[in-house]
């Protein structure tokens, strides 16, 4: 339970989310919400998600996504235990529901809303509660396939590709967190709680950058061959951002936003080849010029050491991005300087764990200590200090 003043210190959350919104609950818990995650006596099924600590077998996935919570077990076969679970909802501000959370089926939301009219219920499901696909199962890959993120990721020589990890569900999680706080704001202002549905499918579809733009406005883009853009590796829809090999690694290269500055740099390096040819001054040649510019940059970059190239680019305000692996990210000087990492306890050992992605000047966000509550099937709200 958070001990310092955080943004959501006075907000009580019952977390019955599954993998589709657990990240959203983490966001709010790290912002200080007093968050309780009940789990079945046999253990939360999400504790089976890898990666695991090689020594203790503890799920690192769970340690990350279920951070800053208080946990207690619920015996699904015990009516007293289920009564305690439902009693929590009478004194909560927000309840997250996920269909694949085994305890979600044991809460009586209608009864809870009668006893606690301010309750905000956030129901995150693959497709929402209506429509022809409402009962479809959709783990992250399937959700991403139907939602559109998989179709634009990958290359011509690969199948459509899943985003690494569960990046579709972190999108729905973020939307769910925003929905919960909007509902809370309304409830605090009016005393009126409500149910809020968040379909994962639509969260993904709303977060595809160019995809719908390409469909509806393709006539505005001279390189649009069709109303959808094929998957094409790292090449951005603008054709101006792409990963290129360097002498010793990979670099995301772009001549945007200042093409003239990029050209000047190539001239300075004596690597401009034919880019100063007057033929490129003809506006009708601009497409050919951009294509040629990217080709010249590719040849030049291939001879450059990554580190030097990256810092030179940033010195010139060129938004190059050095492709880093996880080990390199773990040693990143910017993250260190901003004290982003936080001590994380795994099986009684301390590690440098990921921190939170916002810094509040007066109510710090941080990963808070977890707590296990012992429960003898009675007085869970009282144990939590959640008496109404």
């Amino acid at each position, binding site marked *: 339970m958070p001990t310092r003043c955080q943004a959501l210190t006075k907000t009580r959350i019952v977390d019955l989310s599954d993998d589709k919104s657990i990240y959203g609950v983490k966001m709010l818990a790290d912002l200080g919400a007093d968050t309780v995650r009940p789990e079945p006596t046999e253990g939360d099924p999400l504790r089976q998600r890898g990666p695991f600590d090689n020594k203790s077998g503890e799920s690192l996935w769970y340690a990350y996504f279920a951070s800053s919570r208080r946990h207690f077990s619920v015996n699904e076969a015990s009516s007293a235990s289920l009564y305690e679970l439902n009693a929590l909802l009478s004194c909560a501000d927000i309840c997250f529901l996920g269909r694949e959370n085994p305890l979600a089926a044991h809460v009586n939301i209608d009864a809870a809303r009668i006893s606690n009219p301010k309750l905000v219920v956030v129901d995150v499901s693959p497709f929402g509660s209506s429509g022809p696909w409402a009962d479809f199962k959709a783990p992250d890959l399937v959700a991403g396939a139907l939602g559109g993120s998989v179709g634009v990721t990958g290359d011509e020589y690969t199948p459509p590709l899943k985003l690494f990890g569960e990046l579709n569900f972190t999108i729905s999680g973020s939307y769910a967190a925003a929905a919960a706080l909007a509902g809370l704001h309304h409830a605090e202002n009016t005393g009126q709680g409500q149910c809020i549905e968040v379909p994962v499918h639509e969260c993904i579809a709303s977060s595809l950058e160019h995809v719908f733009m390409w469909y509806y406005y393709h006539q505005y883009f001279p390189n649009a061959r069709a109303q959808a853009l094929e998957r094409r590796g790292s090449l951005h829809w603008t054709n101006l951002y792409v990963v290129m090999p360097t002498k010793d690694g990979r670099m995301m290269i772009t001549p945007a936003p200042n093409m003239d500055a990029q050209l000047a740099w190539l001239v300075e390096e004596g690597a401009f080849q034919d880019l100063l040819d007057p033929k490129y001054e003809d506006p009708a040649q601009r497409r050919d010029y951009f294509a040629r510019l990217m080709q010249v940059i590719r040849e030049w970059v291939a001879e450059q050491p990554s580190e030097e190239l990256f810092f030179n680019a940033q010195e010139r305000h060129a938004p190059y991005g050095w492709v880093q692996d996880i080990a390199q990210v773990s040693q990143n000087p910017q993250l260190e300087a901003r004290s982003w990492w936080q001590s994380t306890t795994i099986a009684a050992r301390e590690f440098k764990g*990921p921190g939170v992605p916002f810094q509040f000047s007066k109510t710090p966000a941080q990963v808070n200590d977890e707590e296990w509550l012992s429960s003898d099937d009675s007085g869970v709200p009282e144990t939590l200090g959640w008496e109404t």
Partner: protein
Amino acid sequence: MRPLEGIRILDFTHVLAGPFATRLLGDIGADVVKVNSHRRAAANNAPGSPYYVIWNRNKRALALDMSRDEAKDVARSLANRADVVIDNFSFGVLDRWGVGYEAVNKSNDQVIYIQMSGMGGGGPWSNFVTYAPTIHALSGLTHTTGVPDGGPIGLGFSYNDHQAGLHAAVAILAAIEARRQTGFGQQIDLAQFEVGAAMLGPSLLDYAVNGVNAQPSGNQPPYDQFAPHGCYPCRAAGDDILDERWLAIVCRDESEWQALVKAMDSPSWCTEEIFATAETRCEHAETLNEHIAAFTREKDATMLMYLFQRAGVPAGLVQTGIDLAEHDPQLAGHEFIQFAEEEHPLLGETFIDRLPIYFEKTPCNTYKRSRLLGEDNASVLQDWLGMSAADVQRGEEAGTFK
């Protein structure tokens, strides 16, 4: 009544990450005043650009030429009346305009002031210039998304811009709640780079705890023993951009695997020892995928999706933008694609992808078109500052509101 009605947001954001944050807040009822100027209204920041139109609905447009002192004075006055001030410039730009946090907080201690720069304030990289592909590269997202031994491919769209926008919206909403409890506003420093890193939390923890440096795993999950888990070729429909069709299929446990076997009419290869357990199926994923691809290759993907889903197997078409816009019955049933209430003066009818949040009591179904440069000068300046129409006109003629 939408949840955020009554909240005023002064919006200095541009491109995608910031506008995506304020789009969501505008959708749920905040009065978002988008500041732009004739000097900056180019490329994706031009009000006639489709990109701009998509991310700037449900906002009012104010033109301020911040190179002029009079405009800076007006910006300061607006900030004094704002609940939220937001920008996604590199750190320091708004300070130079005299509307940095310290200046604004002196006269408006209720203000929530959020800066969503690429790298955050402080640190050796604080002034680095970034777009989403830069953040993807630096945070590990590009490296990890790809196929084994195939080099980094990365994500096919500006994923992190959306995530940064959503994180900013959550941070603002949390700060509004904190203000209710404490009586004060505050500054929020949101680094888009840290949002990207947070997306790889389990892998960063795996490196810290086990020393494992995560590598791209194609469509296999990087850590879990789920097999099959992939995209499988189906009969090309003829109207696809690469003349292909794919179906994603996932089995997370024995019951889903058995359901898949049954739905495929129990082919004999399924009984081979190498496919007996999840562990052995993962070990022989390549062979397993070949068998499944042979089954799916000549079949209609949509038919297979329904067959498998009815059997209890997670399966889904790999959809393109055309599929989403034209053929997706779920999106159509929810009226996910709508059109703005009014025609855009430059683009005509503009589409809306609706907010994917369904509020029971406070429905958010109002979608006003994106506005032209300075189109709402008069209403904004009157509502927020009580400025007369004549004063607004004088400012427009002088070039302050331009």
